[in-house]
């Protein structure tokens, strides 16, 4: 029996003006795994996630999620967390959760309450008064409180202090059910996250350089993913 693919991209190409952000990328990702999307700045990680989320559209090639073209139906199955802040200053933490809960079909309040507690987020705190680390926690709480098939997390550790990083990674593992949810996490902070990756895709200048399971990378190259990351992008 063939493995059911959640994400299928074929010859995906995206340009921004003269910049070739993604170049002929073909990837298939099955259901229920954690994928690390790694690469230096400008390698195309964010663009790849945006294409899956429906924030940008390919110049050529195709993107399918659960066999469907990206649109309203796939947006109902995908929880996307951008790198930048997406909440409004007037919102409280509770407002941010409530706002998202009212707009998506798969919100899980029980999970949201658990995440709030675990991430030490106060429901009444105003977004504008949150530190960068707390804002990152809030973004994660909002995106992981959904029962989505696919979670797209763009640099969730970027600019975050070490205690927040540990919390974020732990909550990722806590909220993830192997075999049910799929997470694609883009990062260049490989050392802290590689423990949760089941598969790793190395991007460079918009192309896939390596696409293997985390285990086979460690076995074949005889080093950690961080070690290989440093070697590849040296």
């Amino acid at each position, binding site marked *: 029996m063939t493995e059911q693919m959640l994400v299928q991209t074929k010859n995906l190409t995206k340009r921004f003006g003269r910049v070739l952000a993604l170049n002929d990328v073909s990837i298939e990702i099955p259901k229920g795994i954690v994928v690390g999307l790694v690469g230096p700045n400008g390698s195309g990680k964010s663009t790849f996630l945006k294409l899956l989320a429906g924030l*940008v559209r390919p110049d050529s090639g195709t993107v399918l999620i659960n066999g469907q073209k990206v649109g*309203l139906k796939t947006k109902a199955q995908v929880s996307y967390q951008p790198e930048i802040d997406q*909440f*409004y200053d007037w919102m409280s933490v509770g407002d941010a959760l409530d*706002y998202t809960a*009212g*707009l998506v079909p798969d919100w899980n309040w029980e999970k949201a309450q658990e995440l709030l507690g675990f991430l030490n987020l106060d429901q009444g705190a105003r977004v504008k008064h949150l530190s960068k680390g707390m804002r990152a926690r809030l973004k994660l709480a909002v995106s992981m409180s959904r029962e989505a098939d696919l979670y797209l997390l763009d640099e969730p550790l970027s600019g975050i202090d070490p205690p927040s990083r540990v919390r974020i990674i732990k909550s990722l593992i806590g909220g993830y059910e192997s075999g049910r949810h799929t997470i694609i996490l883009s990062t260049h902070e490989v050392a802290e996250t590689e423990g949760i990756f089941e598969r790793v895709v190395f991007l460079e200048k918009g192309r896939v350089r390596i696409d293997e399971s985390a285990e086979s990378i460690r076995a074949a190259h005889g080093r950690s993913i961080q070690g290989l990351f440093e070697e590849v992008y040296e």
Partner: protein
Amino acid sequence: MKGFGKLLKKDLESIKQVAIVQGVGILLWNLFFFTRVGKESPPWMVLPTLLPFVLVFFWHIMQTVQVYRHEWQLGGIYQTLTIPQPGWKIALAKLTAVMLGFVLNTILAAVGFLLTVWRAGFRELAFTYVNSLIQAITLAEFIKTTSVFALGYLMLGINIAVVIHASYNCMRLTSRFRFLLGISLFTVGWLQSLFASAGYHIFRWVPHFAIKVPFGDPLNIPQTVNVIFNSSIILGYILALALTFWLTGYLIENVLEV
């Protein structure tokens, strides 16, 4: 309409502060003139209370742009474009938010004007005029004419918002340079005239309708004139409005990129 309330609340919050400042501005302006007129005041003393009606349109244009700009500036657009909500619903929430501001400011301006007229001693004159007008054209005609003017005013507000929203989203397709908003406005205006022209031909079979409009010296018995409206032009205009609104929703759902 699941989710519409959340979107509307968010859009109202994005324009709330400026709308409150505008509302307070209208109140203070009207209060100033209200406290300065009396029964002996010359008629021109109430004229400044008409100024807020003009300002309401300028502010409406500002708010119409603000409701989108705010979202792009603060990054909320990332969530708006990745939630499973259709583009028309996102556009309708923004249109409703700015129209609520427009209507509330108009009501404030109208109440201020009427109270000032009242205090200035034109109360009896106004009553006499309206009474004689109703006698001249019947109450039903009076209501019909008033409704047509109110609807026309409201449609003008909606049209301004719809055209600016479509233009703003067109601008986002090409570049983030502000001057392109002008070109987008021109393009959307041209598109709307095409839609209206098509609507005019489609609805040519609809009969015209007339309203009685007063004219002449309000101190004397009012005279009225029959103003005939070409229904196909109005229906064409409404069709153009709907299509321009649809264009905004389509751009949001299928074309915009962040």
